[in-house]
């Protein structure tokens, strides 16, 4: 009898994380408080308990995160008793004299890369585990599970290593770094079904709640934290919404929803006709090759 698909995906992810533990000296798990990285922590517990994680949780904080995600992050780290490293984009901006984007759709999203690279250098991380999935976006469809990056974090699609069977080659030179994606083969729906099956707790913003929003370019953006500056002509409304994905406030749009429970959220996702990133991520829509270009620049 074949294993259930969620069991297979779970086992594959655990196997990949253990490969990281076995092949690298100083790995890290990139944690954002979003559902994908929350799932990774749950998988890491299955992979390594009763031992400690062989890596800290690392959060690159843009300073524009939903407070609910930050609270969740801190509570989780304390509950599981694992190390949490937080580094702030603001500090990088100051340290490196970077220009903070201004203008209508300004976001620090692209600057996260600089902070990530600085953090990798600070701790000499040789591998960073992240929650990216191949179904998210076209440029990720060809991403390897072990994605070798150079010292600038750069991704060259033409130099990716072939990955056969479940053999992962994480051999690198000093200064190089590998990004590892244990849930590469999981779809958005797989993540949600797993969360439901495992009864994983999520930050409340994933479920329908009422909040103040700004209507911009047909999308509902959170006014929380004063991150997005309203302009004349922008409408401020109060709606019942949920967040389908949790990037930071500046680039994550809300979806109107009446899904107050996990079952309702999943039912809505199954019925939806728009993809996760298409509905919610402003950063992908700048151009067709937006993600590809950002990855070449070292983006996660």
């Amino acid at each position: 009898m074949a294993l259930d698909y969620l069991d297979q995906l779970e086992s594959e992810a655990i196997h990949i994380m253990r490969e990281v533990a076995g092949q690298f000296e100083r790995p890290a798990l990139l944690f954002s408080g979003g559902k994908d990285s929350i799932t990774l922590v749950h998988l890491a517990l299955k992979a390594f308990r009763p031992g400690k994680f062989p890596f800290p949780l690392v959060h690159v904080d843009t300073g524009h995160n939903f407070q609910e995600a930050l609270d969740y992050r801190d509570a989780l780290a304390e509950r599981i008793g694992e190390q949490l490293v937080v580094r702030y984009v603001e500090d990088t901006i100051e340290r490196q004299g970077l220009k903070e984007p201004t203008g209508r759709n300004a976001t620090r999203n692209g600057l996260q890369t600089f902070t990530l690279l600085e953090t990798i250098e600070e701790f000499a991380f040789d591998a960073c585990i992240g929650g990216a999935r191949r179904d998210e976006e076209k440029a990720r469809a060809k991403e390897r599970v072990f994605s070798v990056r150079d010292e600038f974090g750069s991704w060259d699609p033409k130099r990716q290593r072939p990955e056969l069977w479940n053999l992962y080659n994480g051999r690198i030179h000093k200064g190089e770094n590998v990004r590892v994606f244990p849930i590469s083969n999981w779809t958005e729906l797989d993540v949600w079904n797993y969360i439901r099956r495992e009864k994983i707790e999520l930050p409340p913003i994933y479920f329908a709640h009422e909040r103040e929003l700004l209507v911009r370019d047909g999308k509902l953006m959170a006014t929380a934290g004063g991150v997005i500056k309203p302009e004349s002509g922008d409408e401020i409304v109060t709606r019942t919404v949920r967040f389908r994905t949790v990037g930071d406030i500046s680039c994550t749009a809300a979806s109107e929803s009446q899904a107050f429970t996990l079952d309702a959220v999943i039912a809505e996702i199954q019925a939806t006709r728009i993809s996760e990133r298409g509905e919610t991520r402003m950063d992908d829509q700048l151009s067709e090759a937006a993600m590809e270009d950002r990855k070449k620049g070292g983006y996660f």
Partner: protein
Amino acid sequence: MDLLRFITAGSVDDGKSTLIGRLLYDSKSILTDQLEAIERASKNRSNGSTTIDLALLTDGLRSEREQGITIDVAYRYFQTPKRKFIIVDAPGHIQYTRNMVTGASNCQLAIVLVDARHGVAEQTRRHSLIASLLGIPHIVVAVNKMDLMDYSEGVFSDICIHYTELASKLNVKQVTFIPMSALNGDNIVDRSQFMPWYNGPTLLEHLETIDVSDTINTKESRFPQGRLPVQFVIRPQTAELHDYRGYAGKVASGSFRPGDAVTVLPSGETSIIDAIEFAGDHLAEAVASQSVILHLTDDVDISRGDLLVRSDNQPITTQTVDAMLCWMDTKELRVGNKYVLQVGTARTRCSVRGIAYQLNVNTYAHNEDAKVLRLNDMGKVVLRTAQPISFDPYPENRATGGAILIDETSNVTVGALMLIGNAG
């Protein structure tokens, strides 16, 4: 609900991308914004077509979209109420043989595309050989563009006959033939109105119902080869768990139960399984593809790279190996070259003792005079390893017989190996 990984081999010209696009589109797996993006991109193309170019769904990289071809291996996902699918989309041209080999390594089924106008072609032979060498048990011969041949039953039958003859030369377990038109949607998801003579399944019906359970080594009677490559040793060394030592890994094949006698390879030390742990629970049995933690009754020396096997059915352990190889580097492989070989979690240095032959992937001829193997070449080699390695012959056990060669200087994976046996 289970999972099927299948590869689609074919090139742009025989409609592979259109077939995948049609499969996703008709099963309603393409979402509105993705469809809008394709429509926009279709309008941007200068070829003047007005219909949606479904092939654009799968060409993800900028350079591919600009050139209109598929270069790398792409992974697409969809599910129906019956099954979850992973589509491994590999380029079809001979200069990308290594990409198809890579993609095929984990697949349980291969869709080999045949253009109904041309019949069994050189690339059909090549794709079928690769599927066979990589041990893919199920093949679907998708006879496409039937609309251009008036949906002729005669054309379809001829192709089936030719292909069956071809398949007899290969190690292919099961073949299904489906006549279709990806462009018009005939027999992909919806049954064709134009081929009443065809009573077989549509492509999706076949994909949803094919039995994949015996391809992942779960049936004890067929694959009694309990194998677990050790990935990581869990030692909390806390006060409460001072003596806890767990060997973490993924069961590659067969199964393990508490009480089983096991042997550690390559050292040969033996012990008995005390307990099998998963997510804090104790299991009565661990089967293939489960990631578990094994506890043994003895304090044996085990570390990452060791292979734990059931003592009653042991693999080959040797330092001189025969293997089929797909070469993936721009630098040639020559006798005397040294590489790092990785099988399971074990790595050892090795050198090339000999090249038995280079295999012509189109004609299947053996060139025994070959002195080198070049990028995309396939052949049979003899390797000498610094440390003994343990494996099962690849045709018997895909999970333990596959290995890779790594260039010691660049660290790049340069070869894919299907280990055959002891060459000594």
